[in-house]
Structure formats: structure tokens, C-alpha cells
């Protein structure tokens, strides 16, 4: 049906796909698994003509094809249901279904009635019972996702890519989707099912392919493999886990979180001790970042309670959280962390500038001493502190953000995937820095997508799955497979 040979793709210095060979059969449901960043989405995007490969060829029914954009791939019968829904919030459901669909957009003049008539069967197919005239922003996230699926159906695609289609769906919507997948399969449609959820994969897929670090590890029939084996393929057994010398933590509890719920968390409980590095593992959408948002006053807490140093802690805003000694290094450095046009020095002292001023008047000498000190502690490399912070590399930008919080002398620091997209040297500096912070008696909570990193640096690891805490395991004895098994929702311990 569809085949790709030696697909190679790199972004800057990072290799996203390494000589990928892959084959899809007609009328099969084919699962594509892998950790975050393994290259699943890149592969799907290349096959659908959204991204161009650097090397390699794509064959459709035996004939080589060269996509010049997603339009040509769509005309050839490939549809992608993306992870990040590229729908239009202010347009109606019917208009969203029609956009880019040449069968529905036959002329410049579109009759609303014709659009609505065309939309209704598609909506029925995905089990959505709503008025096609409704604007999309009146719909729930789950309904959005179903509209996205309906849109791919409307294209009469022969191959449909579903990238994490159930991530925002309710349980009965998932059942309806599975029914739809079975019907599509009977019509001879091939479905590529990109997911982390092992239970779902083994329920509806015929074959499963595993990717790791941009490479295709293998393809097996679901009947011939097991959840355990797929997980092993995902994490790779060859990697020996390095365990760093960890500073022993104190017995004193710093933070206690009891059954805290937010919009995305469901009754999460854990304790953080003074001097502890608590890792947080989970797949994208599992609520990893939400733990930090709740702790930092960014997500309203709907249930449960927190105590910080024995006293009740209920942050109303980040301002409040900072006043209580909580710091957060956000996942998205550019949008949530840096004031990129401001100088390096101003960024480093932004959270603590009150300390270097009297009656609001900034003492520039004191500020300079403090920023120089913080930048040196974080081993930041820069030419001039006056230069805008955007002139720094990603790793050094991250160090500026960490330096900013060092100056506030926090009690708890939450790092949200701090080493993502930075070079090895800077990563190493950050590992050392986190160790030093814990050594000084801080409580560190560290979210990471890289399990070896957590195993090497954390004392314990909290694993989240769909907003629930599914386990807190000792990093000294745990393996990547243990974590991945929990994170994919496969609770039953395997011997």
C-alpha cells in the first residue's frame, strides 16, 4: 500500500529520522509506538507531505511519489489527524469539515445548506450529534477531536494517520472511535494509530511498529508480541543506566501534597523531603507539567490540600507562590521564561530585583554583583551581561532562568523538562546544579522526558498516567521498563 525507504531527516544538528524503512498493508490498523521524541510524528508528517525528507523515497502502491505539499498527498488519499488540532475555532463545524476538501468546495460560492448536508453524514459517522452550524469554539475538546477525525473521513482517505486520537476523548467517545476504526478497516482503509496507550493498541491494532531515537526498531503482528516486549523495544535494553552520586536527603518533610486535583490532575498525593530530587515521569498529556502549575498557583486546585513546612499552602498566583519560596523553571523557555529582548543581567535579577533596591530605586552595583555571582554559579557562558538574553544558546538561556531563581533562595524548585533541546555539556552543568541545590536542602521536583536522566539524578520517581499518580518508585532500583510500564497505563506488574 504505502512504503517508505531510507527516509532520513534532520533538524539542525539533531537527527530526527535515521534511514527509516516501513511498510503499510491495505486495510490494516497499524500502531506506531515510541517515547516522546522518537520520531513518530516526524515520520507521519513526512508521509503526509507536510514535512519534506532529506533523503529517501516514498512508494504508493508500488509507484514512487514525491509530495510537494500536504495538498498533493491528500489528493492521493492520505489524511492525517494531527495531535495539535489545526482547526478554526471561529468557523462552523461544517466549514471546518469543508476547508481544503475539494469535493465540498466546488466553487467560490458556498451554500451553507449544501455544506451542512454534506457535514451531517460525516458527523454521524464519528458519533457526533450536533448542529453543523455551530462555531467550533462552543465544542468541548473531545468534540474537537471528533470533528478532526470527521474531517479526515470527509477526504475519503485511503490511509488515515491518527496521532494520539484518544488523548482528549472520553471513554464512550473512545469506544465509538474504535467502532469507527473497525468499520473503516472493513472498507479497506489503512489506519496508522500513533499512541502511547498499550491497552488500546493491543485491542484494535493488527500490527505494531516501534521507533526509538529516530530509528525503526521493528514491526510485529500484535498477536505475536506482547506489551512487555513493545515496552522493552521502546526504551532499548542496551542502555546501561548511569546512577549519579546523590546527596542523601534529610528526613524532614518539606512539602506534602494530599489528593490534589485540578482540571488535569486527579487526586495526586506525594511528599517531598528537604534535599530530595523527586523525578516526575509520564507521557505528554499525563499531567506532568500540571503538577508544577498547581504548585505555582497557575492552575486552580479543585480538591485536596498541600502543606509547605507543616503549614497549609494554597497559592493563588505565581506571585504568591514565589513569596512562599516556590520557583518554577517552565517548559517553554521562550514564551514562559525569558524576556528575550531584555539584557542577560535584567533577566537574571528579575525575580529578586527588590532585594537590590531601596524604595524601588535600583542599586546597579549591587545588582551587577548579584547577577555576576548567579551567572557564575550556573556556569553560564556569555560575552556581555548587557546583551539581550536571546543572543545566548538554549543551554545558557536555561542557566539564566535557573540563576534567576537561585537569587530568590527558594525552598522548592520545580524544573519542567529543563534539559530539552540543549546540548550535552549544558545538560551536564544542569545535572550538577540540581545536585548542588538539593545538597543545600532545597526540594527539587524534576519533570523529564528522558528516563535515564531521571534514573541518574532523582532519589524517587513519581509516575503519572492520565492525571493520576500510578506509582512512586525508588530510582536506585527501578528500571526504564518499570517506569514505561506504569506510564503507559499498564499497571499489572510483570515478572
Amino acid at each position, binding site marked *: 500500500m504505502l512504503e517508505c525507504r531510507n527516509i532520513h531527516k534532520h533538524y539542525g544538528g539533531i537527527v530526527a529520522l535515521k534511514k527509516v524503512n516501513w511498510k503499510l498493508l491495505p486495510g490494516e490498523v497499524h500502531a506506531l509506538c515510541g517515547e516522546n521524541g522518537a520520531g513518530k510524528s516526524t515520520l507521519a508528517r513526512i508521509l503526509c507531505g507536510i514535512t519534506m525528507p532529506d533523503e529517501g523515497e516514498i512508494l504508493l502502491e508500488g509507484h514512487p511519489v514525491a509530495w510537494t505539499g500536504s495538498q498533493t498527498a491528500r489528493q492521493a488519499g492520505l489524511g492525517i489527524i494531527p495531535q495539535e488540532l489545526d482547526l478554526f475555532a471561529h468557523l462552523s463545524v461544517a466549514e471546518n469539515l469543508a476547508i481544503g476538501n475539494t469535493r465540498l468546495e466546488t466553487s467560490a460560492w458556498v451554500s451553507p445548506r449544501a455544506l451542512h448536508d454534506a457535514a451531517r453524514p460525516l458527523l454521524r459517522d464519528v458519533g457526533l450529534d450536533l448542529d453543523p452550524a455551530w462555531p467550533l469554539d462552543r465544542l468541548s475538546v473531545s468534540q474537537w477531536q471528533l470533528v478532526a477525525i470527521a474531517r479526515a473521513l470527509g477526504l475519503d482517505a485511503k490511509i488515515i494517520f491518527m496521532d494520539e486520537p484518544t488523548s482528549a476523548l472520553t471513554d464512550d467517545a473512545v469506544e465509538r472511535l474504535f467502532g469507527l476504526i473497525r468499520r473503516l478497516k472493513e472498507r479497506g482503509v489503512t489506519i496508522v494509530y500513533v499512541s502511547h496507550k498499550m491497552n488500546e493498541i493491543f485491542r484494535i491494532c493488527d500490527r505494531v511498529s516501534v521507533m526509538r531515537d529516530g530509528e525503526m526498531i521493528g514491526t510485529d503482528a500484535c498477536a505475536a508480541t506482547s506489551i512487555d516486549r513493545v515496552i522493552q523495544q521502546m526504551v532499548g535494553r542496551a542502555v546501561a543506566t548511569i546512577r549519579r552520586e546523590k546527596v542523601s536527603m534529610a528526613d524532614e518533610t518539606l512539602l506534602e501534597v494530599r489528593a490534589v486535583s485540578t482540571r488535569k490532575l486527579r487526586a495526586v498525593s506525594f511528599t517531598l523531603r528537604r534535599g530530595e530530587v523527586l523525578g516526575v515521569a509520564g507521557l505528554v498529556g499525563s499531567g506532568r507539567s500540571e503538577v508544577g502549575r498547581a504548585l505555582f498557583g497557575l492552575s486552580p486546585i479543585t480538591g485536596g490540600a498541600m502543606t509547605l513546612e507543616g503549614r497549609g499552602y494554597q497559592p493563588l498566583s505565581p*506571585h504568591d507562590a514565589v513569596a512562599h519560596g516556590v520557583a*518554577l523553571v517552565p517548559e517553554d523557555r521562550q514564551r514562559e521564561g525569558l524576556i528575550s529582548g531584555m539584557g542577560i543581567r535584567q533577566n537574571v535579577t528579575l525575580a529578586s530585583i527588590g532585594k537590590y533596591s531601596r524604595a524601588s530605586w*535600583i542599586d546597579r552595583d549591587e545588582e551587577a554583583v548579584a547577577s555576576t555571582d548567579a551567572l557564575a554559579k550556573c556556569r553560564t557562558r556569555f560575552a556581555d551581561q548587557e546583551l539581550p538574553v536571546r543572543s545566548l544558546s538554549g543551554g545558557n538561556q536555561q542557566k539564566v532562568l535557573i540563576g534567576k531563581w537561585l537569587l530568590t533562595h527558594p525552598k522548592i524548585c520545580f524544573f519542567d523538562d529543563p534539559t530539552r533541546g540543549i546540548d550535552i555539556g549544558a545538560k551536564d552543568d544542569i545535572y550538577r546544579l540540581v545536585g548542588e541545590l538539593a545538597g543545600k536542602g532545597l526540594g527539587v521536583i524534576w519533570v523529564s522526558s528522558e528516563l535515564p536522566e531521571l534514573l541518574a539524578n532523582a532519589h524517587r520517581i513519581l509516575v503519572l498516567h492520565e492525571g493520576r499518580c500510578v506509582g512512586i518508585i525508588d530510582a536506585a532500583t527501578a528500571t526504564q521498563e518499570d517506569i514505561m510500564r506504569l506510564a503507559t497505563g499498564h499497571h499489572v506488574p510483570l515478572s
Partner: protein
Amino acid sequence: MTGNFWKYVKHHGQPFIGLVLILVLGTMLSPRATDGTIVFLEPGNLTDVLLQQSEVGIIALAMTFVIIGAGIDLSVGSVLAFSACVSALMLMVWNPHGPTVLQIGVAVAASLIGGALVGVLNGLVITRIHLQPFVMTLATMIGVRGFTKWLTGNVNVDLGFGAIPSGQFAEVVSSKPFAISLWIALAIIAHLILVRTVYGRYLRAIGENARAAAYTGLPVRGVRLATYIGCGALAALAGLIHAARSHQGNPNDGVGYELDAIAAVVIGGTALAGGRGSIVGTVTGTLVLGLLTNVLRLHMVDSNLELMIKAVIIIAAVWLQHSGRGVRDDL
């Protein structure tokens, strides 16, 4: 020291170029008096320009803060008229039978507080209900204008002459030394607040990236609210000068002042997107506009043509600053 000076000119010099250009052009094109002196450069003429521009100049100072905080305030022209009318009413209609200073003081305080309250309203709605600054201040621009007209019955409130409080108020406040030095003093204070205080630092951070500023724990709402309060109060202060200079409170005055103030800020290199800007630039922008008007008026150039030339100046000034930075934020 000289190194610092050149570094400063390099970083902040662009608005000065326009100022120097206008001064040179003005000198060259200026008509000559019968004794051969250059009319444009006469102290009387130049201080006339400063006095004329003091109203918009003071508003533009506050507008710079609002715009750096990624906001806009369209209500300043209406607040100016409101303040002029309130002060005129209090000086003419209200008679406390007390000392002159007291009556003037109360009238001034009432106008300033009234202006600040409009700012409180703008700021609270913008930061709490998240109405867009443009929409909210457009509404207050209309509403405050209506309120002022209702307050005065849509008639001018004339100030008196002589030793009565209103006459003394007009004489002092409209005098060149008072109005000009007030503007200069406020400009210096505004500059220092912007570059040397925690508040100024927070404002620039919030204007450039409000989300990151919030994630750093900065009091985003409070800082933004303060810019609108300051803008309301300074617009009211400009209204006092306006009342004194025109010797009346006219509920229909001040139309279009908000756009003059915004033009001065923009010519001065402050980015409408927020985060970046300077008081030095704004003062220069105000002067460029004032001197341009002056040069053209000395030549009796048609005021319609004057507006068209101003339009070209605004576009040219902002375009020069863009090309100077060498970075394009869009595609």
C-alpha cells in the same frame, strides 16, 4: 565618559537625528526679522513651542508608560477636557469664602483625582475583566466626553481675570516658566522611574512578555493598573494647563490629543507592541512635532498641508527606526 556618551547616542540617538534635522531645517528656512535675526531661533519663539507642546508633551510621558506596558489609552483627550471643565467650574461656581490658595488647591486636586479615577476604571476593567485596552479606553473616551458635556451643560466655563482665584490660577499655570518647567520636571522623573526603578524594570518585562513576567511572580495587574492611573492623572494635569492657557473650560476641547500623544511616543521609538521605549524618545518626538508646526506656521503654510507633512514624518520616523534595528519580527 565620552565613551558612554557615544554609546548612549548610538543606542538612543535615533529620535535626536529627527530633532537636529528639524532644528537645522527650521533655522535655514526661517523667515528673517527686519534686523536680520532668525525668527525661528528667537528664545521667544522656541519657548512658545515648548509651551504649546507642554500639554501633549505631558500626556505623551504617561502614554509612553501605557504603551511600554503593551496597552493604549484613547481617553486622554476627553480627560483633558473633563479636567479643564471641573477646575473651571470649581474656580468660578464654587465659592468657599476661604483663602485663594485653598480654593485653587481644591480645584486642582479635584481635577487630578477625577482624572486618576478614570485611569482606575480603565485599568481595573483592562486587568480584571480583560477587555482590550483599545476598546475600554475608546469607551471611556466617549463616556467621559459625554459626562463633561453634561456637567457643563455643553457651554464653555470662562475663567475670570485679576485678583480672584480663577484669574490668579490662569496667570500662574499658563505662564511659560510654570508650564515648561513642570513638563521638564515630569519628564526627568518619568525617565528615572523607567530606567532606574523596580517599577520601570517590571513594566518593560511585562510589556515584552506578560506571561513570562507572571511566571516570574511579578505583580502584572498592579503594574499595568498604575500606568492607566498615571495616564489619567497626567491627562488631567495637562487639562489644568489647557484651562489656564485658553482661559476657560471647554467641554469640546482636547479632541484628537490622544492621537497627537501616541504619534509623539511612536516617533520617539517606543514600540506599540510593548516592552521597548524611552522617555527621551517621547520628549524628542513631541518636540519634532511642535517645531515642525512652528516652522510651517512661520511660513503661513496651509494647516491642511501641515497635517499631510506630519503624516509623512510619522511614517518616516518609524520606518527609519525599523531599518536601523535591522531585524524584522514578521516574515
